[in-house]
């Protein structure tokens, strides 16, 4: 590996959210990244390079980062006069490691919901045989909508040092995607004692029962590595929408799917029987401290 590995960022069918997420990395970490890697091309950042020139040159790429979904269709979408699929494969040919940045690049994400183009999918599904067999390391999927900048930086630094990174069944780095979004949420005590939020906009209450929070079913590090260094959605009162999982986007994301008042889905790996038994016990007790306002202001 070069001392300053060459990184090329390719944009497919995207909203650019992952780019802006990267730019929101801790400023010192971002500077470290720019000094430790040679970002040879990014369509929003670099001015000195041209994508087609790089493709036509002999230049090798250490890390190919792709943001956005891929398609063979050029009626709806083209980059530099080519299809995203075509450019992707040309780039993969020259690359050692391929990282799908964000849910769209990993499996199609939000953009795959555009039904007039049936050919929108993620990087892995878009690799032609030649490109796929040539790769020595599996495509690394960093799901998330957007991805957290630290997940990108840490992946790059680990692979730079160790040459590889362990992936789960969805090809996501195990160390980032083994915890649940639920781990570290500041509303955990409310979850434990089944004190639900009556409605949005409160510091108190768990968002799982009514507001559709997918925290207990979603693999991510959002409450462990905070967003923008300071926070997370669930801490603030917005439910996790499960954007790192392959079923995102789902239907009715801001409410909990229930049948006859009972949640349809229970926390990951926990049976309905176990969850309902525990909930029944917890709900039996009214704990005043948890029913009250968290902070009691004067006047």
């Amino acid at each position, binding site marked *: 590996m070069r001392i300053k590995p060459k990184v090329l960022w390719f*944009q497919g069918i995207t909203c650019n959210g992952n780019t802006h997420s990267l730019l929101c990395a801790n400023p010192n970490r*971002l500077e470290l990244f720019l000094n430790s890697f040679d970002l040879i091309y990014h369509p929003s950042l670099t001015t000195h390079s041209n994508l087609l020139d790089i493709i036509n040159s002999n230049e090798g790429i250490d890390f190919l980062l792709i943001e956005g979904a891929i398609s063979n269709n050029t*009626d709806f*979408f083209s980059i530099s006069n080519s299809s995203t699929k075509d450019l992707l494969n040309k780039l993969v040919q020259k690359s050692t490691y391929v990282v799908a940045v964000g849910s769209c690049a990993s499996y199609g994400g939000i953009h795959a919901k555009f039904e007039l183009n049936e050919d929108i999918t993620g990087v892995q599904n878009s690799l032609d045989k030649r490109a796929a067999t040539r790769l020595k390391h599996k495509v690394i999927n960093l799901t998330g909508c957007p991805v957290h900048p630290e997940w990108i930086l840490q992946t790059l630094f680990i692979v730079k040092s160790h040459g590889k990174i362990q992936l789960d069944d969805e090809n996501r780095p195990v160390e980032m995607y083994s915890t649940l979004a639920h781990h570290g949420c500041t509303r955990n005590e409310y979850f434990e004692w089944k004190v639900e939020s009556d409605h949005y906009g409160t510091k108190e209450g768990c968002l799982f029962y009514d507001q559709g929070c997918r925290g207990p079913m979603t693999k991510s590090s959002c409450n462990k590595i905070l967003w923008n260094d300071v926070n997370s959605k669930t801490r603030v009162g917005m439910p996790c929408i499960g954007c790192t999982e392959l079923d995102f986007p789902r239907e009715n994301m*801001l409410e909990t799917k229930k049948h006859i008042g009972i949640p349809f889905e229970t926390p990951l790996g926990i049976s309905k029987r176990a969850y309902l038994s525990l909930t029944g016990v917890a709900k039996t007790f009214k704990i005043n401290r948890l029913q009250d306002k968290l902070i009691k202001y004067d006047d």
Partner: protein
Amino acid sequence: MKTVDIIERIEGEAHLKLDWRNGVVKDSRIEFLNFRGFEYILEGKAPLDALVYTPRICGICGQAHLLATVNALENLYKNANIDLEVTKKAKLLRELGLAIEILDSHIKWFYMFIMPDVASLSQGKYKDYQAMNGSKWLDAIKVASDTMKGLAIIGGQWPHTSYMIPGGVMCDPTLLELATIENYIDQAIMFFEKNLSGVSISDYMSFNSVSNLDDLRADLKDFKDLSFEHGLTNIGKSYDKFFVISDMLGFKSGRIKLINAGKINLDKIKESDEFSFDAKDKKQNKKKYSWAKTVKYDENFFETGPLARAMVGGRKFIKSIHKEYDDSVFTRVMARMDEMAYLLQKCKRIIKAVDISEPSFIKPKIKLKDIYYAKAVGSIEAARGSLMHEVEIEKGKIKSYNVITPTVWNLGPGSKSEPGVAQKAIIGSKSLKEATITLRSFDVCSVCTTH
């Protein structure tokens, strides 16, 4: 002679097609060739799901779309004659989020999307503005990242939060949190003072005449010097007509056709796809060359964005610059950076006005799903100008959803006899560099244009 160039660093890409005669652009076309189909995606979805989908129209202005969606959804209740209450606190927290996102966007645009190009006009000097290597480029990204923490405190994260919802907001900040947000704003103010204006923000806000340009120091002085040196005060002029759709953030809604600002009527906004590709038609009519649509007000092209807001709102410094330099590239850029100072102070006032004892959210009396039929519009001012969302719901699902983004106003296609706003601005350019700088002066968001 015809040239085609691919333009990047516009939140996506576009093809700039120029027709030259005697070294001058006589006709221009801006082709947006990428379409993601959000309006189609939203059909059949649950109304509240729009709050998750629309921020993903754009990575840099997602919160603008979120607010437009919330306004549209709340107006559905209004149009269905159902009372809905939103507290002042919730409205303020929404505006705060929007304002911070606009600030972030303007900082990034200036240092990432336009200054590298303007600085390169003077070979050799101004190396600090270089993309990637320049110290000013990196400092700007750092400040943008830090300022955004303010939004993360009420939204949970940025990009892509849906903390605004019909009935209010999902967050319930403490005084501590509001104070922290103010800290980040103060840091951004220090950046503005030290790196942009070179004078204190209160001194800057007292500027009211074109002669104050001489009082500028720091990076805005560099921009001013470069503009005068390379004639940016003479290029990029377009129809000189301005449009602002919403009163939020203290802007004034209205339009300027000749001199004075007049009221607007949303019914006079007409979108056309005469030159725009048809998503459902395989064979495209030859006239159609872009995925961007065209939008006019009262059958005229109008510019929207910070310059429009300064003009309609009567901000003296920019009006004075405009009197001297019309709607040139120089005026347009100055208006955008001027808006930063205005918004920074506005953020501080918003924060001070929040009464944390008010509820953040009042549950609507009925669910949107239970309204049989309704139609509504949500309109707001985003970083790049006026943004409009039109939603129609029926039997619990979205029947139709239409988005008109500010970049459509400015960069939508026109005809040879009546070119679009940016097209007209580019006509008369004497070099490709001039043409692209003119294009950039509009702050293009390619992904928003075509959505």
